[in-house]
């Protein structure tokens, strides 16, 4: 590949690279700068005071806890269900492979279209009564979000897991059954380790998708102030956007991005070592 | 299956384009256009232009207008109000184009002064 070709490619890549720099990278560093200022207009350097304020803010804490809970519970549930469904689906003959598509459809559908259905679905008297019960920590307030999250995102997981499952050659199963493995044991000891790198990726993808629930949350509750149990980091940030509270917002974004970066970096490393381990 | 999708898509597109071009026009042209004004109160008598009184089979009626802000435009709905009495203007204040009317609870609501088409209770109208 000659130099001229490489240079041309590089040149053609400039628009998207420049755009990426201009709209994502550079302003991100500027917002880090904002997080150290007192307010958007003054240039008063207040160091970590903003960070102390944000981390001490009860709403930020509430949002953080809610987001973490939602992600953990949501990802666990969706992983379980995705694996179960994938294992079932993969055993069907290819004639029925269209069934998979029914599960995938919610993933591409625009949220606004079907959110009305879900609003009506959860708007019954009996359900409102359930949400009134104290002491449950608002479980029923958030439940619609869990249901919608599962419904929307199981599809992509199923596609990824079934494709990994089909790559396991039948010989492996034959060898395992010769050794006496069957049913549940077969699955946990043989299948799962073989698709572990895919499962890991699906886990991360589900985690990223769990943070996108804001879209549905905003549309479902029709407001930026959902019930307490459903108030998440994204709501917190959106509200500060409306107040044009740049310094608070920048601080929250920096905290958030740093945490995510650490998590993603750990995942990146883990994923590399895992995929080296399997064949 | 592919054929069905193509046919449906073309029909869909045709409908969408049609209504994009004609939607607003249809909104206005399918409704009677009316002139709206408030009645004139002199003393305790209510005056309305003669054209505002509609003589129908079972009596005389006027139509009051309620305005509601819709998604795309103002929605005007008429309510049929029975007149208890009406007489020609004999006070000479406003002249022979006006009548003195009486109706239950009616003093100051926006009213249809004239309409391009006969009205019914609950009709939607447009001003103009």
């Amino acid at each position, binding site marked *: 590949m000659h130099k001229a070709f490489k240079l041309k490619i590089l040149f053609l890549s400039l628009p998207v690279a420049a755009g990426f720099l201009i709209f994502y990278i550079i302003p991100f560093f500027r917002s880090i700068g904002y997080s150290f200022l007192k307010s958007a207009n003054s240039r008063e350097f207040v160091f970590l005071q903003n960070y102390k304020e944000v981390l001490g803010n009860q709403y930020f804490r509430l949002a953080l806890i809610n987001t973490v809970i939602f992600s953990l519970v949501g990802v666990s549930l969706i992983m379980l269900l995705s694996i179960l469904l994938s294992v079932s689906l993969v055993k069907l003959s290819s004639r029925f492979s269209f069934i998979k598509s029914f599960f995938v459809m919610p993933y591409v559908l625009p949220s606004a279209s079907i959110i009305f259905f879900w609003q009506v679905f959860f708007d019954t008297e009996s359900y409102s009564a359930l949400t009134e019960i104290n002491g449950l920590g608002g479980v029923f307030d958030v439940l619609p979000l869990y249901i919608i999250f599962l419904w929307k995102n199981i599809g992509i997981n199923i596609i990824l897991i079934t494709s990994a499952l089909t790559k396991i050659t039948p010989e492996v199963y034959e060898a395992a059954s010769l050794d006496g493995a069957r049913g549940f044991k077969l699955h946990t000891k043989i299948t799962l380790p073989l698709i572990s790198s*895919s499962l890991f990726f699906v886990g991360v993808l589900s985690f990223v998708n769990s943070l996108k629930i804001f879209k549905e949350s905003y549309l479902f509750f029709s407001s930026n102030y959902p019930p307490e149990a459903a108030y998440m980091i994204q709501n917190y940030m959106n509200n500060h956007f409306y107040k044009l509270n740049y310094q608070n917002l920048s601080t929250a974004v920096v905290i958030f991005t740093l945490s995510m970066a650490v998590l993603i970096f750990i995942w990146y490393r883990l994923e590399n070592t895992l995929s080296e381990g399997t064949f | 299956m592919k054929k069905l999708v193509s046919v449906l898509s073309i029909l869909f597109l045709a409908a969408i384009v049609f209504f994009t071009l004609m939607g607003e026009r249809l909104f206005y042209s399918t409704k009677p256009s009316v002139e709206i004004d408030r009645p004139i109160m002199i003393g305790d008598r209510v005056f309305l232009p003669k054209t505002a009184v509609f003589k129908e089979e079972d009596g005389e009626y006027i139509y009051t207008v309620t305005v509601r802000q819709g998604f795309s435009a103002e929605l005007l709905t008429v309510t049929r109000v029975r007149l208890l009495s009406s007489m020609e203007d004999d006070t000479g204040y406003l002249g022979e184009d006006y009548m003195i009317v009486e109706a239950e609870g009616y003093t100051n609501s926006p009213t249809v002064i004239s309409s391009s088409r006969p009205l019914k209770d609950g009709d939607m109208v447009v001003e103009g």
Partner: protein
Amino acid sequence: MKRKRLYYALRLAILLALALLFIYPVLTTAIKSFSFEGKPGLYQYWELFVTNFTYLKYFWNSVFYASVITAVSILISLPLGFLFAKLRFKGRDSIFFIFILVYMLPFQATLLPNYIQLRDFGMLNTPLALTLPMMFSPFAVFLLRQFMKTIPDELIDYALLETSSVLKTFRYAVLPQIKPAIVSLAILIFCESWNMVDQALIFSMDNNDILPLSVILGEIPENVRYAGGTVYMFPIIMLFVMFRETLEQSMEAYKL
């Protein structure tokens, strides 16, 4: 043998039932759109398109944004995807990691940088705000790199023997190999842009006229919401049905 058949049939029945349950919301929304105040028929659509005639304005807004974002982002991301896939240079993987990082961040983290820049360019509350940042999203670069990695190096070297023109190489060696993948990518980006909510809320806070349907749909009167929702998801469903297999095959390339 019979037992196995029974289990198979049972599994099939359960899966079918679940599948139907999954599209139940879609079916309900569509079916309910064909009745209006108790009468079956297309009345709700009339009410939607005539009484609420601005609905279509927002519909075309969505069409505009989704089309522009899809076309432009794929076009400009092709070279960079190729660069990450086929060219070797120092720091390539680290830079690519940054792309992955930004791609995986939720909207709220990238919204602020986007917003600051849009504000400084004076683009807020204009259609530019609702297209420009999304065009430079790393999603297209990411997937294109995945797809292009599967192209055998020899093919490219062979094409380079014939010509040093980038355009020709792409046209004859690269693009034909990944055509179905590009179609799927286009559909995925289209669906995601069609569903744009977070950005529209923030970048066009003060200008309602240019908003896409995704955020306005919640504000149309209740009696036309089913029809409004059906019209809004119709293009997506058509795309999905037409390109179902291609889509699913390419979704498998999501992996790193």
